């Protein structure tokens, strides 16, 4: 991501980044608050954040701190016209810095020397994010779900970690206030079709396992922060901030006496 409240400077920065890393997914912002909100919402995962230091509404340092509160492992590269004014605080948070106006060779230098090297996530797989909001990415961009219920269906299947789910179970979870009925089951079948179509349209394959009246995900077909956590990946363990699939009430861990099944 790149943030600079001056549009021209942002343009220069973006050009420099794209010239040296043409295959990256770049998310530019002139407004730091919007940038923060998009990250918080999980619109994308910022492997590297190029931040202008001297911004009016929120300084680059403040933005860096707030970004790191969301994702501890973000690589911060400050862009500044006055490196001599960057005190200890900047160096504490930053992977590095570049001078303004941004030049491709300096961007390259920083990308080759990141504090937290980016594991090439271009292993071609779908990337599923369960921590924070449930989000799904493919090739750096969010997967486009035409229906929110379809996304919720996938979330539940991911949550079950490959366990096979019956149509009955899925209907009960997705429409918890409605008693089971043929109409509901038919509705669910439509969702399953929508999910299959959504994945196919994005050229994603092998994620779903379908049997008569049963559905599951294939855990090896996609990368997932939750699964990496379960495998003991230290980065994922430390990246967890206490929020799991925050949009869905069925994902809530806390139970009360009356909830116990």
């Amino acid at each position, binding site marked *: 991501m790149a943030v600079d409240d001056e549009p021209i400077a942002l343009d220069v920065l973006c050009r420099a980044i794209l010239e040296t890393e043409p295959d990256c997914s770049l998310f530019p912002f002139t407004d730091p608050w919007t940038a923060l909100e998009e990250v918080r919402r999980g619109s994308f995962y910022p492997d590297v954040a190029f931040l202008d230091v001297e911004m009016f509404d929120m300084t680059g340092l403040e933005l860096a701190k707030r970004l790191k509160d969301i994702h501890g492992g973000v690589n911060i590269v400050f862009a500044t016209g006055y490196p001599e004014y960057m005190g200890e605080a900047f160096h504490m948070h930053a992977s590095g810095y570049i001078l303004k106006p941004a030049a491709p060779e300096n961007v390259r230098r920083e990308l080759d020397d990141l504090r937290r090297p980016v594991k090439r996530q271009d292993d071609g797989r779908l990337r599923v994010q369960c921590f924070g909001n449930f989000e799904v990415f493919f090739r750096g961009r969010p997967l486009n779900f035409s229906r929110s219920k379809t996304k919720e269906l996938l979330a539940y299947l991911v949550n079950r970690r490959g366990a096979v789910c019956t149509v009955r179970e899925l209907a009960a979870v997705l429409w918890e206030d409605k008693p089971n009925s043929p109409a509901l089951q038919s509705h669910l079948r439509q969702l399953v079709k929508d999910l299959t179509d959504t994945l196919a349209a994005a050229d994603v394959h092998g994620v779903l396992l379908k049997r008569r009246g049963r559905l599951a995900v294939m855990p090896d077909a996609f990368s997932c922060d939750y699964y990496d*956590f*379960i495998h*003991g990946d*230290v980065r994922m*363990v*430390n990246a*967890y901030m*206490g929020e*799991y699939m925050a949009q869905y009430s069925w994902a*809530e*861990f*806390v*139970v*009360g*006496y009356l909830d*116990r099944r």
Partner: protein
Amino acid sequence: MNILVIDNDPAELERLTACLQEKGADVKVTAFTDPLLAVKYGYNNPVDVVYAKTDMRGLGGEDVARLLRNIHPDIRIELQDT
């Protein structure tokens, strides 16, 4: 002694925490309803004993045990089946 307690039910958690805390002044009890946060805690802090349920939302007791044994090989795990 550092004790980690995990239970999705806050009332149960409180009860068990209070019960364990009574065992002595040198007993430090850290409690979580969220097993993932408990594991994160265990990855970054000393833990001697874990009390948890086998079946938990988020992560089951067996998985918690396995993950924490990576960090604390001599850890004692007490799992309860509900």
